[in-house]
């Protein structure tokens, strides 16, 4: 087997199917988008080449709120990294310690990840409903009736309301990744630490978390790029509204292309999202590899 795998031709043969698939499905469309992004085109009529005009319109004298959308997605990324992952980490470390009902909780936390996003969206829309929503009902029941709100209809609360649902949905996903990471650390190390008199907290901060750095890096990359690409839950819950207050680059791109018929301008947004994701991935990996040397 080793000899077989060392033959270059065999390696090529094995990676070729995936390589072709990725090229056709991902690489080629990206180049198409790159080409479209230099056009003024409605999808039907003759294309007009406009160079970098579309990219300029994204940021200079922007009228459709793209900058606000980018800021919204950055806020989401910040919340994901600052709240979602630490929360998942706490859950993962607690479960990995081998508490009672470990498997049960692991399954329960993971359930939102496997439920269809549309279902999750509907669920949260019902929770936030102004008339019969659970949130308002609970607030009224505990005497905080003055705090009730039409959560998804109010431009001041809609964005936060959607973000809560998004963060909630994927907590289980990161928890499972981190849980697997924590479980793969050899028990010998803990044993040695315990003999040296280390407590639970000391072991978590000085053994578990440092050894989980690679998987933490993966989680952070997923969380950040996931925030930039986030679309489905927002589309279901608010569709970017009310009054564009929950718009993120992807929802804006969708309306730009499919209801405004601005293929060129929408493609420029798509390319921006790709570049944004690439840059952040590189930066995060760089940061973590630097730390790993210490």
């Amino acid at each position: 087997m080793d000899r077989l795998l060392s033959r270059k031709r065999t390696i090529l043969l094995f990676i070729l199917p995936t390589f072709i698939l990725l090229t056709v499905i991902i690489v080629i469309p990206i180049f198409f988008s790159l080409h479209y992004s230099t056009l003024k085109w409605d999808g039907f009529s003759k294309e007009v080449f406009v160079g970098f005009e579309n990219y300029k319109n994204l940021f200079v004298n922007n009228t459709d709120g793209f900058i606000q959308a980018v800021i919204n997605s950055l806020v989401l990324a910040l919340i994901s990294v600052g709240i979602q992952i630490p929360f998942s980490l706490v859950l993962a470390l607690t479960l990995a310690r081998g508490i009672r009902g470990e498997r049960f909780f692991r399954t329960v936390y993971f359930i939102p990840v496997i439920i269809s996003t549309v279902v999750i969206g509907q669920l949260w829309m019902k929770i936030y409903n102004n008339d019969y929503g659970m949130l308002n009902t609970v607030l009224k029941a505990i005497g905080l009736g003055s705090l009730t709100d039409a959560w998804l209809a109010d431009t001041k609360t809609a964005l936060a309301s959607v973000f809560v649902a998004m963060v909630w949905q994927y907590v289980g996903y990161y928890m499972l990744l981190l849980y697997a990471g924590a479980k793969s650390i050899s028990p010998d190390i803990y044993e040695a630490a315990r003999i040296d008199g280390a407590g639970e907290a000391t072991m978590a901060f000085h053994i578990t978390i440092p050894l989980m750095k690679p998987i933490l890096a993966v989680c952070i990359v997923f969380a950040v790029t996931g925030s930039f690409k986030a679309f489905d839950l927002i589309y279901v819950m608010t569709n970017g509204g009310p009054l564009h207050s929950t718009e993120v680059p992807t929802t804006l791109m969708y309306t730009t292309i499919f209801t405004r018929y601005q293929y060129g301008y929408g493609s420029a947004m798509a390319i921006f999202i790709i570049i944004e994701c690439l840059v952040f991935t590189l930066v995060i990996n760089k940061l973590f590899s630097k730390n790993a040397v210490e």
Partner: protein
Amino acid sequence: MKFRRVVAGALCASVLLTMASACSTPQSSSNSKGNTQTTSASSEKVTLTFWNNYTNDSQHVMANIIKQWNTDNPNIQIDANSTENTAYKTKIKTAIAGNSAPDIIYSWAGGFTKTFVDAGKILPVDEYLNDGTKGKLLNGALTNITFNGKVYGLTYNQQAGALYVNNDLFKQNGVKIPTTFDELLTAVKTFKAKGITPMCVGEKDEWPGMWYYDMIALRSAGASACLDALNKKASYDQAPFTDAAQKLEDLVKAGAFSKDVLSVTRDDAVAQFTQGKIPMYFGGNFDAQLIDESLKGKVSAVKFPMISGGKGVSTEYLGGSADALLVSANTKYKDQAVKAIKYLAEKFSSAMYLTGGGLPEWKNDSLDQSKVDPLSKQIMDNIVNGSTGSVPAWDLYLTGDDAQTHHDLVQKLFGTTITPADYSKQMQQKINKS
């Protein structure tokens, strides 16, 4: 090392290929337009493809009519393919742009069709209509499918906006059904004072709220002024349009709609009305069937209230032709396809009227009027028949980008984040002058 070079080579090749193919697409699409000669021979058996969005209950009726055609015309078979509404929009746009459109196309009359017409993808059918077809159509049936003086298809269903009123709620609370805008505001305030939300609208979906504005604008400015502005012949930045915006804002500020109006979908809004909780709902005839099913006999469809000092007259309505059948300019079987859409459009028109799915575009005196959906018949009798003019919902008239801009601006009126004066100014700036 050699291996690495192979991979690098492959990568470069793929990049070059991609760029080459990407660059070549535009030319190929513009070339193929010219070489579409018809080779029609009526004796041989042909199959026409027909794409549509008939995925709801109305599809049943359509499917039967198509089946009937296929039985009667063994030499011209129709191969129909239905796609869900929203997906259909994307699908048909892509297909037409890529010159792979079906022979017969379902489309929305007005702006949606205009895009295809402007790109030269749709067959003008004028020369086929002088065989008495025009005489079978109702007045105005071809207005929204005529571009630059040519007819580009046949319509079979029209829309009309109607104010649905829940008679029970009006009676119980001693409120008069409004015929003027002032009476409407009084009704709103009376219901509001009794703890009843007076009206509903699915403003999350944007277009239902636009129906309210467009209707008020029709009463305020009149049909011809609305059409002039929509045709870019007149400005939106005029007193009647600003007044209409002001009137809508008055409604919002009087508490006509619930607090969460911006997150209510159209389906939710109709559901609220059909549960009998809401006394008034301005919607389309397409809501009639559902409303009639749930609140049988309790609801009337009446004209939208008049505005004192407004230029509109009570015989004008929001709506007009909506659904149309087109023939692709690239079809190989022009004669057969036009023959088919004549048959289908006429049959669809009657069938949808009977089931309450739509209002007819073709003369329907031969139909058993007692079998027609009662609310649809009310709309036809109270609002459409004897009308002196109609304006389509503006998003059917304006094309993609402009329609979305109009949606957004009206939503701002609902959210009271724009003044009526700014609304008119921005409509003019963004849509007519852009």
